[in-house]
């Protein structure tokens, strides 16, 4: 792959990534959000993030795997449980990662 081609990839990715993040800010002083959109936006983070990770957790090999032998499921379950129980993000992450590697080792 030529250097020019790789540079074009990075340039193109930058343009669309920055474009998406910035386009509404460019004319932010003139954008007026209807009330119902404001209300719906509150559900964006939880919906987007679960849509990213749920397939990774339930289908680590491309097929549905709901078994105790799936370390992704066990680790994510542990993180979810700790996250609900304690308001502590760092603990949630550390317990999740620890349980993931433990079950990877044991299974």
């Amino acid at each position, binding site marked *: *792959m030529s250097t020019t081609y*790789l540079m074009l*990839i*990075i340039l*193109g*990715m*930058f*343009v*669309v*990534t*920055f474009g*998406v*993040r*910035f*386009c*509404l*800010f460019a004319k*932010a*002083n003139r*954008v007026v*959000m209807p009330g119902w*959109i404001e*209300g*719906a*936006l*509150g*559900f*964006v*983070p*939880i*919906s*987007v*993030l*679960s*849509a*990213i*990770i*749920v*397939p*990774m*957790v339930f*289908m680590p090999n491309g097929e*549905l795997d709901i078994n105790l032998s799936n*370390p*992704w499921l066990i*680790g*994510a379950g542990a*993180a*979810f449980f700790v*996250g*609900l129980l304690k*308001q*502590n*993000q*760092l603990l*949630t*992450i550390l317990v*999740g*990662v620890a349980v*993931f590697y433990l079950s990877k080792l044991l299974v």
Partner: protein
Amino acid sequence: MKNHELMKKGMVASLPMIVGGIPFGILFGSLAMSNGLSPWFAIAMSSIVFAGSAQFVALGLILMDAPLWVIISTTFIVNLRHILYAADLIKFVKHLPMKWRLIIGFGLVDESYAAVRPLYGTNQISTENGHYAFLGSFLSFYLMWQAATILGVVAGELIPGMSQWGLEFAMVATFIGIITPYLQKTHLKSVAPYWVALISASVASLVLNGLPNNLGLLFAALVGVLMGYLASSLKANQLVSEEG
């Protein structure tokens, strides 16, 4: 509150997610190396594009020899969720000079949004000064992402097979750490609509997983947003009729 104290507030709020992001950045650097890409390419992508999950998707496409337009349009779709974050932040940035809007736009990643946005809701920062908290979060995240990428590039050369370790689980755990606070009851909100959003987006993401170019992710997210919003409207109507 002074500006540097606000920046510190943003950094502190981001700290758990920064810890969770380190293995993910290392994985990116090492994956690029183990697949024969040059170190400068991995570093340039992390510093110029600065988009965690889209970088992984693009890497996969490059290795499949996908054409340029596919790589760029997929990046666009994977990152489209950020427009929803931007829409939510407009009310806090619209009075800011262009320079600030450029910086916040460039740094608008999942984690910084998730770390800083709740600080407005709990009145720890305000529309007048919140952008400094965002700057603190962005800078610490940006530095971590570059350092982790470089570390991954170096480690990927020294330790072959590192990309098989499942380091991307750190991202899963980090995102769970962002999700769960929405599901806990506070005096500010009712939690049921957030559970509805979580469950419907999750089911949709599994059902739509086969769609090409990660379109399933986008549609599943929209399903979650819609269902959550419907549930919250129903709940609001219920409260009104109970009071009346």
